[in-house]
């Protein structure tokens, strides 16, 4: 009972989530807003005089843990704007493919000459496209939104002596209201519809007519199915791989089921499939799998006694079954369709009333077999794994 309750509660939880707003968005159409401090790519901005702030001091190149920054310092010359002498940089390259966005280059820049931007670069097909050259870095400075951090500000904020007023901590904890948890009521409604007995009768009529036909196609079909059964039976014996033998046996059994169906014993055909193919064959596969040592390799029949022994057993079994068939009364000239009207109820009555003794004896035999199997299977412990034979450290 507890498990049922658990399961229902879990189902209710997921269902409730299904009717909440999603937490994801469709990316290119909707873009999640990024914080002020979000940092992904780089830019080389201007200083307050409108010329590039970088003086090529190489601090960022030396601090970079991934060593992705290459700066080519230029010569000192007079600034065209202020007229003062200052240093310039000729080239500046950041290899984004190895950059870890640690912000150390921004942190150490005393001139605020390198900053990070909030918009990421587009994915590229070539590795070279991820190398941010001078032109792209300069373009980012005008085209993209700068992130919050820049060198002087970061350094100043970290100065131990600094005293800064803090925004008061606002206490706001919006409590999420507990939602009621009862499973949604479901009330299926139902009403009667007029019964349809005509269709069933017609279908049965048609089926019977089909069975009764002794035309060529039926004989042909019988031949094909019977050949299938026989051939695959031969393959069962011939197969080297045990698993393949079992699968061929499956085809034999299916073909037998088809024969039953053609003879009108469709219930028997269904049971044949259900029990023999679905059950017995599967069990055989299972047995092969858990007992075979080396999967896929079957023993090669080297000794000559075994095939002979097998052939003798098979022949005698065949003789027994053939004798039983021949000696059964009323089979000689009774065509197959004579058996067809046998209903399921007749079958049940036949098994549980007329032949109840044989049925029960069979059940007893099967029970004994099961108990025997359990006894044999239980004889396994103690296994060889519990006692190591040698100590090899």
């Amino acid at each position, binding site marked *: 009972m507890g498990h049922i309750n658990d399961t229902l509660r*879990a189902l209710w939880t*997921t269902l409730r989530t299904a009717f909440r707003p999603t937490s994801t968005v469709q990316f290119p159409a909707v873009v999640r807003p*990024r914080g002020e401090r979000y940092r992904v790519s780089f830019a080389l901005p201007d200083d307050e005089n409108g010329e590039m702030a970088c003086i090529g001091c190489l601090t960022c190149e030396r*601090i970079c843990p991934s060593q992705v920054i290459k700066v080519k310092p230029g010569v000192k010359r007079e600034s065209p704007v202020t007229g003062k002498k200052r240093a310039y940089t000729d080239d500046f390259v950041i290899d984004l493919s190895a950059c870890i966005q640690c912000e150390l280059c921004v942190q150490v820049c005393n001139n605020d000459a390198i900053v990070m931007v909030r918009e990421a670069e587009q994915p590229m097909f070539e590795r070279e496209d991820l190398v941010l050259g001078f032109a792209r870095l300069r373009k980012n400075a005008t085209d993209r939104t700068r992130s919050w951090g820049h060198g002087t500000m970061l350094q100043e904020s970290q100065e*131990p002596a600094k005293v800064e007023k803090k925004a008061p*901590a*606002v206490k*706001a904890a919006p409590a999420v209201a507990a939602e009621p948890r009862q499973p949604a009521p479901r009330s299926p409604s139902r009403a009667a519809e007029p019964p349809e007995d005509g269709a069933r009768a017609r279908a049965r009529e048609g089926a019977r007519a089909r069975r009764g036909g002794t035309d060529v196609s039926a004989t042909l079909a019988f031949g094909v199915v019977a050949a299938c059964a026989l051939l695959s039976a031969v393959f069962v014996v011939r197969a080297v791989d045990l698993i393949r033998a079992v699968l061929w046996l499956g085809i034999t059994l299916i073909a037998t089921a088809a024969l039953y169906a053609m003879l009108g014993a469709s219930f028997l055909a269904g049971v044949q499939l259900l029990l023999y193919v679905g059950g017995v064959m599967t069990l055989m596969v299972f047995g092969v799998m858990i007992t075979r040592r080396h999967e896929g390799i079957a023993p090669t029949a080297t000794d000559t006694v075994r095939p002979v022994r097998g052939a003798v057993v098979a022949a005698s079994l065949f003789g027994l079954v053939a004798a039983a068939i021949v000696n059964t009364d009323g089979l000689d000239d009774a065509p197959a369709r004579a058996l067809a009207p046998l209903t399921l109820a007749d079958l049940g009555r036949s098994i549980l009333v007329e032949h109840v003794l044989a049925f029960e004896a069979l059940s007893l035999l099967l029970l004994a077999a099961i108990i025997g199997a359990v006894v044999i299977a239980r004889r396994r412990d103690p296994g060889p794994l519990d006692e190591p034979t040698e100590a090899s450290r």
Partner: protein
Amino acid sequence: MEMTEATLTMQSAKRGRVDPHRSMRAYDADADLMLLHFGPQHPSTHGVFRMDLHLDGEIIVKATPYVGYLHRAVEKLCERLTYVQQTPVVDKNDYVSPMTNEQALTMAFEKLLGVEVPRRARWMRTLFAELQRVASHLLWLGTFALDLGGALGGGSTLFLHCFRERELILDLFEEVTGARFHYNTHLIGGNRHDLPAGFAAKVHSALAIVESRIAEYEVLSLNNGIFQMRSRGVGVLDGELALELGVTGPNLRASGVDHDLRRDAPYGAYDELAVNVVTAQGGDCYARTQVRFGELRESIRLARAAIDGMPEGPICGHKPIRQPGQAKATSGQVYVGIETPRGELGTFVIGGGDTPTCPYRLKIRPPSLHALSALPYILPGATVSDAVAILGSLDPIMGEADR
């Protein structure tokens, strides 16, 4: 806690399993058992981790873990980088909780260089560490559910629910540091980024949502019958063995050992914030889940306390980073261990050597590696399905274990 080789052998003998130190030939001379190479390319090995499983049917007889597929020479790299350059590099070690890697590293450097950290920075680090613990445990819960329920089933539902709430925590980190993974917010002596205005309100609203959803996670995992069937009595790690193997963190506390560095060797703001250590009995996957759920709630409480009691003052007690070689240590060796979401993350540094601006040797003690070392002891006797659950419940991060 005297543990010798004899006790180890005794323990494995008590379980009636194969001694993990012995060669498989001792038990399986005919090579009857199926050898299954579990990983490194396998959906449930949490990265690139490999186990050789000797299977009897589906029962594991012997398990041999192999690490090293994600080795990136981080320790060697740290010997070549200066002290101030290393923080962003170790972010990637434990890629589920980058904040705590930075914290462990900078704390070791601070101890080596004798730098005092101001109170505000310590409280900020504690706030980040607890938020990171919430995010990390959420991700663990999601991936553990994936291991138990599959990527195309209920597991992925819980996984994405956990990611939904983890996102809120990452948004908080983005708010402060501007990054979602490579925070690089710790520097020697304090923090690089101060908290923005109105941050406390955002923390409170995010934590309120996370807290309200924990009950939902419990319905989908801890309180669910199937989850309990899959985790109870699976992968039992007893406390003595865990201590002997150096297993720490939630995995150790789930085995009933009351050990937490935040309380036992306080750092950061833990001397002022009392930590209620969560433990559980049993040492199985279920107990490990219980501990992490408890820590989820405890970390939310601590994070709230940290943001509410956040003191004013400077955020760095050392000069800000201006030059790569500005921090120098000519001698000395220190070890600092902190309690990350996965256990004790230790950093051992020897200063000096040829270049005083770089450490002579840096060794990271990853909690995940020690958790993985328990596998040969607790896997035998379990099935393949259990192996996935046990591995997931230990919360290994291969980036950290392999470094």
